[in-house]
């Protein structure tokens, strides 16, 4: 018993000595960042629509090719409607998807606006005529992370001079 106690004592001394010699230095690295909410709008080809260039990006185009009121062929998924003898319309669906990050927004408002005024042709998305002066709200209750189809319709008067029709539609999604 006595030997056991002595051994215990010696081990205690060694344990204290060992603990005292464990040398540890420390350092601290702080990491900070400011996360901002962000919203992203992308276009994509609709299943029933004209093939877009720039699909899944925020800069896309719909090339409708060369069309005429009474003759010619149309690109796939472009519909032509002849309005008597006054005009004809070309229409095709396309998809708009809006994604959200780091925000508590539950819906968005989608606005569209012609970049350049067109006094000859009429531009519509769905039932909404587009103008250059002011943006038009296509929806005020857009659902995030869902591709929503919209139909672009361009109406060309029969009196319009043959030539290239081009314009840009600016879309903006505003989180609500």
């Amino acid at each position: 018993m006595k030997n056991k106690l002595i051994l215990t004592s010696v081990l205690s001394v060694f344990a204290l000595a060992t603990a005292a010699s464990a040398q540890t230095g420390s350092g601290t690295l702080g990491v900070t960042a400011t996360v901002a909410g962000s919203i992203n709008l992308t276009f994509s080809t609709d299943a029933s629509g004209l093939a877009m260039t720039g699909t899944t990006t925020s800069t896309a185009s719909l090339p409708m090719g060369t069309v005429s009121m009474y003759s010619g062929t149309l690109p796939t998924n472009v519909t032509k409607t002849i309005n008597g003898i006054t005009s004809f319309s070309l229409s095709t669906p396309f998809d708009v998807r809006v994604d959200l990050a780091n925000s508590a927004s539950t819906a968005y408002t989608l606005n569209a606006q012609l970049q350049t005024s067109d006094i000859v042709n009429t531009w519509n998305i769905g039932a909404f005529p587009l103008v250059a002066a002011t943006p038009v709200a296509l929806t005020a209750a857009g659902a995030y992370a869902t591709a929503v189809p919209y139909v672009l319709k361009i109406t060309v008067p029969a009196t319009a001079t043959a030539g290239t029709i081009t314009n840009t539609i600016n879309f903006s999604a505003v989180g609500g």
Partner: protein
Amino acid sequence: MPPQLKVLFPVAVLALVTWRTALGQTTSAPRQTTPIVAPPAVPAITISGAATGASLRSYGPSNASIDLGPLTYFRGTSVPGETSQKAAGSMVISTRFALRVDCPGSSSSSRVRLTMSRLDATSSHVVSIDGTTVGFAAQTLIPSMPCGSAGEHRLDVKIPISTLAGSIGSSVAFAATLER
């Protein structure tokens, strides 16, 4: 031996050793010095910016902070020395920093074990260093590194898109333990 003595005996032995040492320190007796090896000083960690990393603010030899700046999921970061990647449902901001460990009073062949742990409990983001997620328990970053050496490390901060906009922050503690 009574039970009280069983407890007191180791303490008594310890006290005796101390007392005998003290007795040897009298000024009147001829001093017989024994060479005493000073214990090595605590290893010193220095955190600094990496050449290709974001700028780092130092708050003393062992404390520093990195401000990853403004971040957005869709546009990433524009801070020099940082990269951003979009993963499924989250973004990962990456940069680099450097760690140096010096061991004053130790031999040139001394080595340390470097561990890391996270000091905050924020669940809004995940911090990883060299690909290892930093947790609250100490984890080994470098099992054995030479004293006086430095190395660069990659810092990744993963932020889910569900994290609401605002400031985020974390603290990572490093510990360098001298190997025996």
